């Protein structure tokens, strides 16, 4: 699932460009961005760090924020998160 497939009913979507960042900055920046969101709001993070795939799954389990999808294409990784 990507953000566009959710449709407009899913509400406004924030985006975070974490391209080029290395561990742990994609997670740190995501956590900071999440603080600005209310419950149920969506955040899409784009990263280039391959380690982020495992880390976003782990971070979502630790924090309880939902990882709706994790897809990779063209050397980029897209994570769609829903604030708990």
């Amino acid at each position, binding site marked *: 699932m990507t953000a566009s497939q959710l449709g407009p009913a899913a509400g406004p979507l924030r985006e975070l460009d974490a391209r*080029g*960042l*290395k*561990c*742990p*900055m994609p*997670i*740190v920046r*995501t*956590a*900071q961005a999440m603080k600005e969101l209310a419950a149920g709001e969506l955040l899409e993070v784009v990263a280039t760090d391959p380690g982020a795939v495992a880390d976003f799954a782990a*971070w979502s389990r*630790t*924090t*309880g924020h939902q990882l709706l999808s994790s897809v990779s294409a063209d050397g980029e990784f897209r994570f769609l998160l829903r604030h708990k």
Partner: protein
Amino acid sequence: MTAPTVAPPVAIDRQPFDARMLAFLEAAVSETPVEEIEQRALLDSAATPAAEPKTRQLVIVTWSGELDKLWPTLILSSTAAASGMKSDVFVTFWGLLPFVRDGVRITGQDWMQKMLAVMQRPGIDHVRTTKLNFLGLGPWMMRRLARRYNVASPRELLEAAQAMGVRFIPCQMTMDMLGIRQDQLIDGMGEPAGAATALELMTQADATLFI
């Protein structure tokens, strides 16, 4: 004692099995109708709010003051805070030197304290590596590599850690021994404390590291 009679089908399904079992057993002993006890239990559970899930806690004792140990200390502590964990770092012995603010060159009052500050310059930009130091060539290369490959520097990580709410607690005894005053440390450090504080944090934490 009479054998407990089989309870009729329970209408209240919202109660967990354990609560129903307890009500059943209590009814068997006290001869109070099981429905009445269940109703009471339901009221009790409604009155007491559900316990908040315990916030997980990471405690790191940062001791070495060396670049290749400071780095993971800052990575883990900031990520813990970013993961919603309580994250405390107890800063002791050589570990205190990177937390001396920029521009403070010589710390200490007596000649030995000052001499130590000459032998190991305080400040986050002057941290050595545990191996391959080669008079500073090793750390210089590591910092260059970090920049080239866009790895966050200790300074950036420290800023992120503080912004995320990581608490850095300086060791009072180390400050006394090395002659480092609170106003010579970076902004945002916690109140100086001692071993008992460190131990209390460590025994309450879910993960503890001595780096």
